[in-house]
């Protein structure tokens, strides 16, 4: 890819302007009004949004995102239904989809990348596709102009983390803890460690996700990183019926936590 894509440009601009980055996550198709919810979330202080394409076997997700995936699948949500909805969504911020590799592989790397590009989706996060297995996909994604966000975990050694950072586009997803997605009472110590390790390794913005559950935790994580991804804490509220307004209110709360930090 020549120069940063839409996702990375937007996040770099925000960071360079001194803003902490906020990337909320919503599972596509999880409620009848998920798209309205996503729009409200995007407009409540997000710098980008992450949209889950539901998979039957979300191996790295905890109970909350499992429940939202199941709800979406029970509503008959298909990958293309989510992508098509995003095409017309006009969110005002870049979108990255998050999904598991089988849905991509089943469609074909090339075809899936084209679907995303045609829908104006800027990035893709595929957590079960580590560096060594992602070569074919990354070529097709780059060819279609889709940025592939790679993940670095607390267990990733430094030399490997450097190699991952070099291939990650959009942002570098710093995994905040060893474990699955889900809310935690406190921010894990590993969140700060990952942020501190990755910062000097890359010019690409670093966002910490997994286990970032509150405004205070988001602010704490951003002491060592450029931004945060917040998933389960938002998805739980949507599952509990928060609706677009309630979801937006929570995102606004996260935003002011970051701005006040």
């Amino acid at each position: 890819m020549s120069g940063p894509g839409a996702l990375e440009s937007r996040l770099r601009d925000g960071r360079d302007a001194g803003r902490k980055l906020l990337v909320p996550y919503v599972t596509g198709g999880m409620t009848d009004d998920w798209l309205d919810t996503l729009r409200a979330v995007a407009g409540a202080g997000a710098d980008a949004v992450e949209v889950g394409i539901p998979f039957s076997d979300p191996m790295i997700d905890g109970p909350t995102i499992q429940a939202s995936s199941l709800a979406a699948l029970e509503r008959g949500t298909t990958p293309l239904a989510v992508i098509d909805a995003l095409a017309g969504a006009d969110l005002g911020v870049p979108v990255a989809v998050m999904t598991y590799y089988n849905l991509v592989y089943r469609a074909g790397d090339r075809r899936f990348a084209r679907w995303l590009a045609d829908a104006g989706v800027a990035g893709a996060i595929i957590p079960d596709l580590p560096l060594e297995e992602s070569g074919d996909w990354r070529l097709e994604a780059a060819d279609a102009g889709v940025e592939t966000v790679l993940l670095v975990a607390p267990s990733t050694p430094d030399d490997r983390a450097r190699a991952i950072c070099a291939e990650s586009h959009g942002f570098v997803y710093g995994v905040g803890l060893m474990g699955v997605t889900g809310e935690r009472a406190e921010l894990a110590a590993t969140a700060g460690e990952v942020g501190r390790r990755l910062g000097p390794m890359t010019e690409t913005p670093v966002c910490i996700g997994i286990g970032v559950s509150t405004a205070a935790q988001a602010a704490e994580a951003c002491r060592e990183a450029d931004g945060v991804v917040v998933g389960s804490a938002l998805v739980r509220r949507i599952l509990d019926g928060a609706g677009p307004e309630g979801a937006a209110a929570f995102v606004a709360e996260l935003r002011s936590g970051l701005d006040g930090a």
Partner: protein
Amino acid sequence: MSGPVMGEPGPGGRFGEFGGRFVPESLVPACQELEAAFSEAWADPAFHGEFEEILTDYGGRPTPVTECRRLSERLGVRVLLKREDLAHTGSHKLNNVIGQALLARRMGKPRLVAETGAGQHGVASATAAALFGMECTVYMGEVDVERQALNVFRMELLGAEVVPVSSGSRTLKDAVNEAMRDWVATVERTHYCLGSVMGPHPYPWMVRELQRIVGDEAREQCRVRLGGADPDWVVACVGGGSNAAGTFAGFADTDAALVGVEAAGGSAVGKGVPGVLHGMKSLLLQDEWGQILEAHSISAGLDYPGIGPEHAHLAAIGRARYVQAEDGEVLEVFKLLSETEGIIPAFESAHALAWVVREAGKAIPTGDTVLVTLSGRGDKDVAQAREMLR
């Protein structure tokens, strides 16, 4: 692919186009560590020595090959059984877990997590944990907890914690998801003791190697019995495919025809297409979008929508063929072997035999010799069979 059939996998743990390591980044270092530990151990005569000693003194190996006189007469083909039902804990699963527990100890990991379907791998894992003084947590789908209640009690008796899994189809596939979720969070002190030739590299290769003792023994035993010859057919049931892979490994370079028998309702080779699940690229039951479908089988151990990647490869290159058995014929054979030979087979193992019974004198010419791996004993299935035969 170069190299011998059923030799070492290619770069990245590939068997042809299948295999690989499709895991979250958090688990990549643990898989790399395990690959290094296994490679080193498997090249170390001291490791082999300890592994084989435990399987002999504690596990009851070698298991015999039994000639089925009455059944053979009835079918017109000569049936030999490799008797894994006689191994300690009642199935071939012990071979794999003793190897993995030794590796866990070598890596300094005091806790095992495992998934289980029929409960046999869970029981074997709990047994190894007791033997080595390790902690053990076993994930088991709620459906299986119910139909294999005695095995749940066995695991608890052996000191393991059994966690019922209520997500998805509440069977083996979901137990694997949950075991992996546990492992991601506990990897520093936990080894994931995967029960079949599936999952990310190095598991499919490592588990096949730990199970090849079944095939290596059987080959020698057959040669003694058959005057130096190999059987015409070598048949085993396939869930993930560990007893089949271990058996086939002993015969891959012979002229024997290799046959894997899947449950009709869980037939990944018959009805699956290539995909990625549980860390591997293999054949999977899935819909047009790539959502994984639920398998359905009378036997909890074969209730899995995928198959080990090496089997997908053996099918692709034609070295092995994969066929199916229906629940009904499995139940018939469960009775048949009990009545003709005094051996009550596990439902899983009965699949292998069901194909032989169906095809004797048809696909299998009259007079041929067939080795069937009897992967486990049927005690765990007696209660379910009683309900069904009522």
